[in-house]
């Protein structure tokens, strides 16, 4: 449900929006996420997933998070399996088309230990956009008449006062926190994103706090040389964390493609005994390593380099 406007403004006005350095570690950035928060994730499916921050939040034992994302992949399994979340709002939830239906998602939702709240893809985009625009809803023309809409409570229909046409109104979504991974940003949080944007800009502007992870931190001077490439302004950002390969085993446009052997390994591990498989994966890759670098080391240098070679090939034309 939409936040009352004055409450939304109060939360925004109370943020420190000054031009200031906010570089910190993954562990430090965890303080911006509280148990019970609504956490929105940037990227989509296996692309620009803010995996390093999710990794840190799971390790920090966060719980009761409501998580939303345009499309949810393996990170959704791990949020369920770790107990960090029992409620995911998205339009599609499974590892990816080639790997079939997620058995972890199935296990948790079919047994009613967790909720997969399904909205149409556009309706999620418009909910974030309404949140980013500071309006309590946006009108749209899809999803009406379907059972997707019938199962959702926070919807209204109206007859357009200009045309008389029936419209669906979807409520603004202003996440407590947004996690966004980008190719580069400066120490203040001015973020530049290459390639597909998904819903990241709206998510960032809608959220009440933003944690940016980035492949690399660049100088503010570099940002100011091409300000028309900046996609998220510093004043909307609470934390900047440099996390190289911060989406692994997912991809980051222009930097690396998904680590397919790792994705296949995960799919295989969770196919037969989904929850034991997810637990084994968490133990090995999430709770085992002492740092993100150690995590990457476990993932393996060779697959990282292979993914990098493929990732950079997008610029090979």
């Amino acid at each position, binding site marked *: 449900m939409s936040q009352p406007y004055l409450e939304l403004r109060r939360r925004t006005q109370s943020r420190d929006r000054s031009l200031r350095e906010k570089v910190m570690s993954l562990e430090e950035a965890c303080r911006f996420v509280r148990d019970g928060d609504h956490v929105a994730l940037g990227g989509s499916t296996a692309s620009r997933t803010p995996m390093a921050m999710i990794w840190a939040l799971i390790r920090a034992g966060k719980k009761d998070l409501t998580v939303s994302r345009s499309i949810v992949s393996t990170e959704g399994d791990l949020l369920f399996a770790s107990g960090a979340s029992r409620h995911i709002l998205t339009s599609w939830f499974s590892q990816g088309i080639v790997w079939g239906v997620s058995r972890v998602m199935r296990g948790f939702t079919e047994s009613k230990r967790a909720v997969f709240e399904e909205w149409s893809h556009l*309706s999620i985009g418009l909910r974030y956009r309404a949140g980013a625009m500071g309006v309590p809803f946006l009108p749209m023309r*899809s999803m009406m008449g379907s059972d997707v809409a019938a199962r959702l409570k926070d919807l209204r229909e109206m007859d357009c006062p200009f045309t008389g046409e029936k419209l669906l109104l979807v409520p603004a979504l202003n996440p407590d926190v947004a996690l966004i991974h980008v190719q580069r940003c400066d120490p203040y949080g001015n973020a530049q994103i290459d390639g*597909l944007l998904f819903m990241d800009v709206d998510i960032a502007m809608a959220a009440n706090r933003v944690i940016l992870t980035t492949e690399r931190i660049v100088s503010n001077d570099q940002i100011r040389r091409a300000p028309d490439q900046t996609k998220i302004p510093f004043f909307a950002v609470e934390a900047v964390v440099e996390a190289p390969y911060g989406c692994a085993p997912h991809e980051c*446009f222009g930097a690396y*493609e998904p680590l397919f052997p790792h994705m296949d390994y995960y799919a295989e591990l969770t196919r037969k005994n989904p929850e034991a498989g997810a637990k084994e994966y968490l133990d090995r890759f999430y709770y085992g390593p002492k740092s993100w670098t150690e995590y990457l080391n476990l993932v393996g240098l060779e697959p990282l380099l292979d993914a990098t070679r493929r990732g950079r090939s997008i610029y090979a034309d």
Partner: protein
Amino acid sequence: MPTEARACTASELLCVMSARLLENGQVIFAGVGIPLLAATLAQRLHAPGLTILFEGGTIGPHIVPGQLPPTTNEQRCTRRANMLVSTTEVLLLLQRGYVDVGFMGGAQIDRYGNLNSSFIGPADDPQVRLPGTGGGNDIASLAKMIVAMPQEKRRFVERVDFVTSPGFLRGGASRRDAGLISGGMYKVVTDLALLGFEEETGRMKVEALHPGVTPAQVQANTGFELPVGPGVGFTEPPAAEELAALRRLDPDRVYTA
């Protein structure tokens, strides 16, 4: 079944028959797999000016033979595209009316063209929780739809367990009355036939049988009454050049095995 048709797989048949429905100059939203392959085939054959959109935000990509992208959200989908936009923006192109055709596969379809990709069994206590709508609901709400899927009794059901992507809902004016005044089911392409929908009732009908297919075969693979009227003829079998072009696009037979 005559030799020409038997010489190709069911997936190849789906691809060729679907590709023929696409017209030069159209802008289409394509799902991965058969839809993308068929759209790319149409570009190579008779529709060089066909524009493909992907849900991830890609407009007019260049598909490299043998390298069809496995999802619509990754950088592989963006190779040599004309434009990249946000997911919300690309879906809004549907709502603005820039898109002619939505083209996707389907897990379960009913008599009125409603598609289910959410639940097997009741939504509150399902036997299987499926991955959900993705862009399907929005595409089916706003564009003229082509669906490609194999014709099987468990997939062609009287009433889908859950209307994920709306067809003609309960038929008649029910889709329009729900507020969906544009788009709607146009064709369903199966390995047995080319199916359409009656304008007044919104009911599925057989428009043509694929070469060698009998009305009884169609009915046997359909979970509701789907009679083949007296005037219904046969589709042209896939031509050698259609199959050759298709096999150049998917040389490893990832999608057409």
